[in-house]
């Protein structure tokens, strides 16, 4: 078995997620000589070279030929994954993709996947301590059987990347908008918690604000799971106060997770208890715990080493993105 330190990782796209993945690889003891990046944007490449001291390329194929990577980490805007994952699959090269907003190309991709290489779509929130804690509360049956849920995620789009003009970033565009990116992202961990698939999804998606974007800024989805659970997922790019709240209604009580407050409140008829989650390792202005991303990349590395099975597949991802498509035509 090859040692992981000998594996080489090629990061495609050096925006905020690409940079994060470089940090995640370095955190997981991958030598910087075994990491390189590709981006057509000069400034991004220069920034990465300066900050992380890794080699970068302005031409994808040149990077492949000169760096000879073992794995691709595809961190491009969500609608640009196809070109790179199809390259990886033809070359039987391990690859990881960030959250997608479309399953375009999945029909060709999925039949070509085999055990010789790892194909790993992102599922970051499965590694979040809060999600692990919610799972453990449900496992202990503290609120009884799960019946329903309410989920809300909102953050003002210009605050997502305060260092750049929001109107020019992928999340401002119709095809790769912030809501379109975040609905599958959120459904991913919600389905993981409920251990179910989506039976029905419909609702309203609109641009309701004056933000300088072509993307929808509000998604309101009503959802029914195969297990019968009914709920709602609301995502907006409008809330000046970032908020992610998730409520589960069970037969014995309810559970409420507040992402910003880092609390999980369990309420039953007799008592209310609050679980305070440990402080997170935050990087820059991001609200999400960096360790979730680190653990996710660790699992990708371990799966490349054949030491662990990566927990999420493109078949799973296809189901979620198909649900997104159904929602968008509802």
């Amino acid at each position, binding site marked *: 078995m090859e040692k992981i330190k000998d594996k080489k990782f090629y990061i495609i796209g050096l925006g905020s997620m690409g940079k994060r993945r470089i940090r995640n690889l370095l955190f997981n003891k991958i030598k910087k000589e075994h990491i390189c990046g590709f981006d057509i944007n000069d400034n991004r490449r220069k920034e990465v070279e300066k900050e992380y001291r890794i080699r970068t390329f302005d031409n994808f194929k040149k990077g492949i030929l000169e760096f000879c990577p073992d794995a691709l980490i595809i961190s491009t805007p969500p609608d640009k994954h196809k070109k790179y994952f199809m390259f990886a699959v033809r070359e039987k090269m391990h690859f990881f993709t960030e959250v997608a907003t479309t399953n375009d190309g999945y029909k060709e991709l999925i039949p070509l996947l085999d055990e010789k290489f790892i194909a790993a779509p992102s599922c970051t929130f499965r590694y979040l301590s809060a999600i692990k804690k919610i799972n453990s509360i449900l496992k202990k049956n503290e609120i009884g059987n799960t019946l329903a849920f309410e989920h809300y995620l*909102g953050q003002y789009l210009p605050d997502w990347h305060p260092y750049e003009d929001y109107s020019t970033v992928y999340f401002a565009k119709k095809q790769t908008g912030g809501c379109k990116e975040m609905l599958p992202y959120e459904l991913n961990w919600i389905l993981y918690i409920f251990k179910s698939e989506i039976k029905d999804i*419909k609702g309203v998606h609109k641009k309701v604000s004056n933000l300088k974007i072509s993307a929808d800024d509000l998604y*309101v989805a009503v959802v029914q799971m195969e297990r019968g659970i009914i*709920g709602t997922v609301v995502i907006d790019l409008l*809330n*000046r106060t970032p908020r992610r709240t998730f409520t589960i*209604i069970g037969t014995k009580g309810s559970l409420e997770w507040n992402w910003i407050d880092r609390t999980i409140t369990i309420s039953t008829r007799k008592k209310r208890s609050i679980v305070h989650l440990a402080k997170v390792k935050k990087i820059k202005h991001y609200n999400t715990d960096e360790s979730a991303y680190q653990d996710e990349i660790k699992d990708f590395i371990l799966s490349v080493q054949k030491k662990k099975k990566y927990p999420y597949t493109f078949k799973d991802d296809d189901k979620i993105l198909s649900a997104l498509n159904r929602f968008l035509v509802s």
Partner: protein
Amino acid sequence: MKKELNIVICGFGTIGQRHFNNLKRLAPKSKIYIVSKRKDIVASNVVRSFSVLQKFGPFDAIMVCNETYKHKKSILQAINLQPRAIFVEKPIALNTSEAMEIKKALKGKRIHFFVGYSRQFWKPYITIKNIIKKKQLGKIYYMRVSCGQNLTDWRKRDYRKTYSAKSKTGGGAVLDIIHEINFPAWALLEKIRYKASITGKVSALKVEAEDIAESVFQTNSKTVVSIHQDCIRVPGKWSCDIIASKASLHWNSFSEKIIISDGKKSSRIFVSDTWNNMFVREMSYFLKLLEKKNTFSNILEAINDMRNAELIKSYGKNKR
């Protein structure tokens, strides 16, 4: 109120009794007749049916507080007695068709007609409406109202024996909690138009009706509204969220605080109210209508709510 009023309360369950007690306090000189078949009522002036009421009229007000499926018949009987005002507990009737019959029967009659949306008299909801009205939040993009309470905690009697247990008697989350369909339209001062819904029976409650409904609406000014109604939640909870151009608002019945936040600063308004005070305010409002010359009616509001309730139910049915 000093004036002696002649009032009828039809139905003497929890809500009928509450209105009776509040009327005794607000209009102590009034004579109150109770129409009920119950034998355990400790009060004078109890009659078993509308038919014997004629000789005790004319009436200032007739209050229809019985089970939803009996509303239409009772209202039509009440109209025949030509009172100055009719009060009916929400929902107005079992369906839009019944509500339209009531509207037709009221046409040309000088009778105040008031569907009792008690939440319109609840301090948290009044405060939220005032905040919207003053445009403190800016343009409203999204409003979410959520109301859930387990039927076993909600009903004093065995819920299986109440009208709440069956769709055909007016049960189910959508009709039983119709005030949450009413609230956004009332607070936003705009009609809401149906967009999507999912309803279902997800609990083990012994009811022949939906115990949960999630629905989405939109107003003409493009505010998207989502409504959650359930009769399964333990413990019961109400909440309201608004996302708007200047700030967001959050309120829930656990904290009793309205929080307005613009991302830089947030302000908190403590809003506490007792359940009965809400009904006292509602009744005071109704009694004041009796002094007005112009006829009051909120029947169109009630019909809109009923139409929306029917849309939620018919398009949201659980296919399982």
